[in-house]
Structures are given as C-alpha cells and as structure tokens.
C-alpha cells in the first residue's frame, strides 16, 4: 500500500495554488490528508500532481462579521474543537468537531478538506448544510460563493469547476435564543456515521432547518422544518422524505428517522 508516483507542490498563496491547478495533468489538493492519504496508498487516487495547501497562511484565517463567521479551508477540526476558532453557533461547531473520528484525525483533518472530499457520512457535510453555510470558492478568475446545499452534488462530488478549490466557509451567526440538535449513529466511536440527524431552530432569524445525513448521497435537507419538527417530531413525515430519496432499507430508515428524532429532542422541539 504505497502510492504511485506523483509530483508535489507546496504553494504559499491561493493565486499560486490556482495557477498550479490550472496547469496540465490531473492535480489533487492536499490539506489534512486524512482521506486522501489512504486513497493514495490504496491507489484509488492516482494524481499527477499534489498541491499542498497547508502552507497558505490565508487559508488558516478566521474572519468575523456581525452576520457570519468565516473559517479558512485549512483550519483543523481540532482547532474548532479546542475553541481556537470563535463560535457563533451556541456550541454546535465545537461539539460536532469534538466527535469527528479520533483526535489523531482531528489534529490534521481540515474543514475544507472534508467538504471537498464530500463523503456523505462526514460530519461537516450535514452540519454546514443544516447551518445554511456558504462555501467560498477560489479559482483562477477569482472568488465566488455558493450555499452549502448547492455545493455538494453527490457522493464525492461537489460544485467545483476545473481549477477551482474551496477557500473558506461562512457560517451564519446564531441568535442568542437559537437551539440546535445533532445526533449521529456509528458502529463504534470514531467510525464513519451510519445516520446523522441535525436540527437548527432559531426563531429570531426565522430559521427552522433539519437534515438527515450520512445517506448514500447528499444530506436530505428540510429548509423549512416547521411542519416536521414544529409540533413535536413527525416520524411519518420523516419516513416520507426517505421515500422520496429512495432509501428503502428498513434498518437504514429506522436509524435515519431515529437520529433526526433525537436531534429534534436535543434542540428542544
């Protein structure tokens, strides 16, 4: 299990990274390497060039405005877990971060890497969807932004064009009274989730969102979940959502519905 041959570059600026990506051959971006590393070793990924983003200072930056928190792509899960990143979600971000895989993975794995890899079972995929985060994308032509719900297109598939990469995420600021819930079911601690339920209720901002994640594809988002969770949890409605997404396995359905129910309870709904 050793990787095939590849070239390696470690640019210092996002512009240089974009230029390298635009060059010839198949390039992959390296951040924490917690998924890409094993994929290289298993030779599931065979890039000509690895562009290591971890020495670009701007990708580790944090920016705060009154509306949102912007987290650079190369910020690690551990930094979020440890409170080195300010929180605007009444504890949701650090709580989710602290339960990603194992600490060794969290020390290196990054929020941008996880979202670019787009494994449906990854915590940030469901979390940033329920948070209604915005993805900041950098390309040779500059920056653009898309909502998380439009960013992930499918399993390991995201809305990055040729030569583009994820530069940062913008997380909307919760109001003080906002409540959240997050429940994931794993076979054992540190494994990928089999089901994720995530809920954000923020009446002050008019937000009531719910997500069923760790499906076979993009998370199932209910952007207005008032009917689903507003008057207690509507298990039948959750089941109907799974029908619509053609999730038919009885065990998986039971897990998804239960994960969302538990998240709903945690969110005080």
């Amino acid at each position, binding site marked *: *299990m*050793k*990787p*095939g*041959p590849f070239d390696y570059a470690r640019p210092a600026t996002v512009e240089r990274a974009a230029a390298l990506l635009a060059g010839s051959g198949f390039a992959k971006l390296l951040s924490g390497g917690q998924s890409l590393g*094993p994929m290289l070793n*298993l*030779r599931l990924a065979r890039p000509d060039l690895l562009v290591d983003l971890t020495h670009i200072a701007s990708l580790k930056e944090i920016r705060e405005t009154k509306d949102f928190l912007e987290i650079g792509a190369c910020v690690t899960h551990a930094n979020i877990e440890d409170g080195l990143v300010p929180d605007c979600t009444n504890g949701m971000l650090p709580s989710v971060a602290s339960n990603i895989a194992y600490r060794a993975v969290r020390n290196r794995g990054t929020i941008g890497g996880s979202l670019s890899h787009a494994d449906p079972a990854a915590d940030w995929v469901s979390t940033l969807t329920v948070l209604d985060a915005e993805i900041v994308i950098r390309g040779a032509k500059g920056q653009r932004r898309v909502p998380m719900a439009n960013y992930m297109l499918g399993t390991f598939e995201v809305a990055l064009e040729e030569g583009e990469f994820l530069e940062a995420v913008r997380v909307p600021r919760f109001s003080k009274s906002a409540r959240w819930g997050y429940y994931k*079911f794993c*076979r*054992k*601690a*540190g*494994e*990928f989730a*089999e089901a994720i339920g995530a809920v954000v209720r923020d009446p002050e901002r008019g937000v009531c969102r719910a997500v069923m994640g760790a499906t076979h594809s993009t998370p199932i988002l209910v952007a207005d979940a008032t009917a689903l969770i507003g008057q207690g949890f509507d298990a039948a409605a959750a089941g109907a959502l799974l029908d619509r997404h053609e999730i038919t396995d*009885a*065990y998986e359905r*039971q*897990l998804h519905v*239960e994960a969302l129910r538990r998240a709903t309870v945690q969110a005080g709904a």
Partner: protein
Amino acid sequence: MADGDIKEGKGVGARLIRKEDDRYMRGRGQYIADIKLPGMVEVAFHRSPLAHARLRGVTIPEEHRGSVFTAADMVGVKPMRAVSGLPGFKPSEQPAIVTEKVRHVGEPVAICFAEGRAEAEDIAASLIVDWEELPAVSDMLKGREPGAPLLHEHWGDNIFLESFVDGDIESIAKDAAIKVTREIRTARQCMAPIEGRGVVAWWDNRLNQLTLYSACQMPHIIRTGLCGCLGLDHAQVRIIAPDVGGGFGYKGILLAEEVACGWLAMKIGRPVRWIEDRREALTAAANCREHHYFITGYAAADGTLLALEAEATVDSGAYSAYPFSACLEAAQVASILPGPYDFKAYRCRTYSVATNKCPILPYRGVARTGVCLAMELILDGIAVEAGIEPYEVRLKALVPPEKMPFDNITKKHFDSGDYPECLKRAVAAIDVPAVRARQKRGEPDGRLIGLGMSIFCEQGSHGTSVYAGWGIPMVPGHEQAQARMTPDGGLEIRVGVQSHGQGLETTLAQVANEVLGIDPAKIQVVHGDTGMTPYSTGTWGSRCMVMAGGAVATACKELGKRLGRIGAKLLQTDVANVKIGNGEVVGPSGSVSIAEIARVWYLRPQDLPADVDPGGIEVTAGYKPQRDSGTFSYAAHAVVVAVDPVTGGVEILDYVVVEDGGVLVNPMIVDGQVYGGVAQGIGTALLEEMPFDAAGQPLASTLADYLLPGSTDVPSIRILHMETPSPYTEFGQKGIGESGAIGPPAAIVNAINDAIRPLGAEINQVPATPRRVVEAIAAAARAKKVA
C-alpha cells in the same frame, strides 16, 4: 535477603514487572520492519483479483523482466502440504506462487522486487494476467451441496474431512421434557495483530545458509516446512523471529511469502524484504473462526442437561495450511463442544469444507469461541424453557469438584478445578439480583438491560498423544530448554518457543529464579532463533508456561545438581551435604555463590580438583507433564449490557471474569492476557466480520470496513482469580493464554438476548451487529402481528 523474600519477590507467583517492557516502552523493539540489510530490495506480490480461476498466462513488460518471477521460474519448489492422519482426510497442495489455478482472492501470482516498496508495487501493477474465471464457492453450506463448483477437482466434492461422534441420543430424547434447537453462525474473522507479517531473507555464503527473519510464532516449524518446500537441509536454513508484535495464531503458519522470499533471496543473491500491508492482511492472508451449527440440547423439566446433538460445519478455506491443517478446527469442535458439563449422550457430525477463501488458521481460543457460543446459547434456551436463571441450569450440569480429575463424554481429561464455585463467584460479583431489579425498573432512555454469562474450560499445553491422534505435520513431544551459566554468574535460558507479547522473557526467568535463586535481572531468556535454541513446536495452544516453564525448571534443576557438585568440591565437602538455592550452594560450614562457581569453572579451572564432574554448567533438558492430555484452565464470564432497541447499539456496562489458571507464575501478566483476550472476544461478539460476495470477493478490505475493538469499546474488566493447581505440571500452572477470548461472544450474545427477550426477539449469530439486533426485533414484531 531471607529465602522467603526472594521467593515472594521474584519467583513463581510474583507480580514482576516485565523485563522486555524496558525496550518496548522506549520504542527500542526490533521488528521485521526495523531490519535493514545492505543491498536489500523490497518485495511486492501481484495477487489474484479473482477467487477461482485458471491462470492462462502472465505478461511481464519488457522493462521489468528480471524483476518479476512466477511459478514457472521456481523450478523444484514444492507446494505446502499439511496432511491430517484423521481417516478420510483429503490433502491439498498450496503452491507458494500460483501454478495453474487460483483458489482465493489474494493468492500470489508473481513476486516482484525493486529498490523501494512503492516501485515494487508499480511493477506488480504493470503485469497483465490472463484468467479464465470459474464459478466460486463463497458459502460453506453451499459448498457442501452436490453440484457445487469444485476447488480440488480430483476430490469429487469440497469436503476436507467429515467426522462423526455417535451417542444414544434417541433414548434420552424420547423422555426429555425440554428440547431446544438453534441454528448458530459465527463470522469469518481476520486476526489483526498490531504488527502484520513480514519476511527478510538473505543467503549467507560463509555458512552456506539461508537466514530468514520472519514475524512468526514457531521458528523451528517454519524451518522444517521451508526446508521441505525449498529442498534444503536444516543446516542450510536459520529462522529468526525477532521482536514480534502479537500473533494469536496468525503467525503460526508457513507462509507462501516465506517460501517465495527465501527462494528469491537465493535466486538474486541479495537480501529481500516483504512487509505485509493491512490490505494483504485482510484480503490475502489466513482467516479464522467461521462456523455454522445446527444444535439441539435436551433437558429434564427442571433444566438438567441430558444430551446434546449437533451438526457443525467449518469453513476451512481453500487450502490445508501448514502445520495445523484444515481439520484442526472441526476436530476441536467435535471434541470440545460438550464444554465443562457432564451429561449423558452426545452426538456430533462435523464438516471441514473447502471454499474459495483464504485458508483458516486457529485463532486464540481456536474452536472454543464458537463452541462456547453454541453451547451457552443452548443452555440459556433451556433456562428459559425451565423458567429458571441461566446460571442455575449451568450449576446443575457443571462437573463438580469431587469428580475431579474427570474424563468427560469425549474423553477429555479435566485435571482439576471447582467449576461450580467459579460460576458462583461470577454470579456474586455481577450481582444478579441487582441487575434483575434494574431490569424491572426500566431505563429512562428506553434502553433494555441484559445479563449474560458463559463458562468454559480451556485445554492447553496438550501434547503428544492428542496431536498424534490428529496426525498433523507437527506433534509436540518433550519440550526442551537449555540453561547455561556465563562466566560472570549470569544465566542464559534458551527456549525454542517464541515470545510475542506473552512476557516469557520475564516469566521463564521467574521459573529459573524459583529453582536456582538467581536474580531475574541476571537471567537472559533467548528465544525465537533456530540457530540459538533447541527445537520446539513453538508458541501456540497456551502451552509455553506449562511446557517451556516445565522444561526450564527441569534444565535448571539439572544445572543446579552440577553446580552443587562443583560447589561441594570448592566447599571441600561431599555433594550429599550441600543444598542449592538463593543463588548459592550451601554446605555444612560455609557457602559459595553460583557466580563464584561459574567464574571458577570457566576462568580458573586450575582451582578445581582433577576429579571434578566434567559435565559442565550448560544443560539441555526435555520435559513433559505427568500426563500430556493437557491442562484445563477454566473461567466464567458475566456481562451486563444495555441494548438500544431502536438503533441496535449495544453498550457493555459491566464485565466480570472469574478465572482459574492453576498456579499463576506472574498474576500481573495473566491479568494482561485476560484483558487482551476479552477485548478480542468483544470484537468477535460485536464487530469483526469479513463478508464475501457470491464471487468470493472479500468485502472488508480496509479497517474502515473490518471493525476492530478500540479503547472506547472495551469496558473496564473486573478479574477475580482462583488458583487450583494442576496435579500434573511442574508448579501446578495451567495454560491460560487464550482463555479471555473464548467467553465474551457467548456471554455478550446471551446478555443481548436477555435484554430483547421481552420483545420476543433472539439473536443467534456473531457479530451481533446493530443491524442484526434491529432485524431480530423487527422479525419478532412481525411474528407477533401474524400471531
């Protein structure tokens, strides 16, 4: 220092800190991957992507010719063969490199080398192989059916061996008030020592010898097997097992890779190294544990066990692996299924079935993990029918202490012990009434509490008579050990067994200390090297403390006699007047230290009289216990679980082990063995499974798919000891190494069933995954609706 102090401090029974931990804890262990020789090349294998196929040809790109070898190049290399003397056994021939036909995914098709492993893998990936794919056998029950694809065509079927133990079930069955029948399955598992396997091989021109380092448990057996395949004399092969990071049975096998790397080193005249990666370990190496049972227990109305009838099938994989053979597992099943119980009639038919999977090897506990599960599930079933506590059913059936030693229904000779007392202590420690009260109260989070138990005995250190009966290539005889003094009063102990986590560098030093009184700090235990140690079948079957421990004691006693004879000369007294112990030879009017005797013998022989005993102070001695039918340690496991009936998740809330390993040489090390074993048993019970698709493809090729227990999955385990000496061994010690891994699946599945029984649900399969638990509950709900 007083005699008692030394004995309590460092001999048999002391909780001595492990000598070897000094290097392990400092990261100074020397494993295969730490060995780098000048000019060494790295090996990668091109492995079969198919489970069953004919090999039509291998195309090697022009630029890699000379760096790739196939079976066609390996003229004269013989296949690995592990026969069994059991009547009806069909042998298989396992080539190191595939010759005509591949029988499981991962079989080596070509050996490739380069300066680095990545480059070797590049070369391996560049080969083009022409296959004719054949239908595969991926399920042992289907493999038994007529018309199944044949692995070894000339057999006419896929049965390595069918065996039958008969008894008069019918006369018991007709009057038995209770009959409990179950179909029980255990998963195919992959053993997963932290260190995988690995080989470094080089040809030593000076010695005319192949030196092969291998992460193995039985260097002498590997040497014998390798000599057979490569056509070399024993003098031409030296096997060294350096520090080895866990074995569990996984490293008790002659590897295709050892044969191929040994051959390659001779062919190219350079040192070669192969390090197994985790994908190879999961998909291309030996598997273990896959059993299927149809089993029926008969009992009286009060729950007294009367008879047991079973049909057991073991998935042996594609080949009979050297040296344990494809049949050890099923032979064990038939002989140990009755467990620690006494009952009237027993019948068991077993099948060892060839399938298109990696060969199986005995894994810690060997067949006991499966038979304990099958037996203990039946006993819980009987308890439910009889309306009594599961432990009460067991107390009625366990062999009582007054019957010890006891020959059970399959003629296993239980040496000693108080099985009922062991169970009673577990019942008390887990506090059955408190658990029952908690169950009644219910949990605020809706989880269901369950209590489960298992009790079993473990035959260990079984010797010549047992293995001669199985007739496999390896039959243990007298275990040998060498004890020799060094001129500075140090003691070298040389043993043919191999320590790969058992702490033998400490415990064998404790044994020597017990006999001679020499401080363990001055005792060096040498092991794992055929060039330096006496022949031995190696480390397996919980045998080292009994066999090598007995051999070390025997050698040290003889050494003591010789030291006494020299010491008597130095003390100018008759040998009848001296005693040895406490590190010295004591006479009527003075004493001389063993160190002084050694110094005089080697460095100042002029100080010795001419008539001194010329035998020297280096002794090799052989040892067998008074009976070689094995020691029987035993243990009761009791566990409390919380089952989430919605997600199927299982949490272990409490875990108790009551263990009787006879006299414990180092109780701290035994505790460690039990902790580790239980962790592995939890893996068997809840997590570990290698599934295959219909084409014979292994579906868990990384540790993200093959789940192993981690630190968060293993609860804090409470261990209680009993110490009933074996009447047959040197100090009364018994083999204990495998015990911890045997009891957990039975105890945990019984606990899960205890929790979900109010829902009408039951599970009879390991691992008891969340999906299986949920599906069992759903099936029960459906059945209720229909009713």
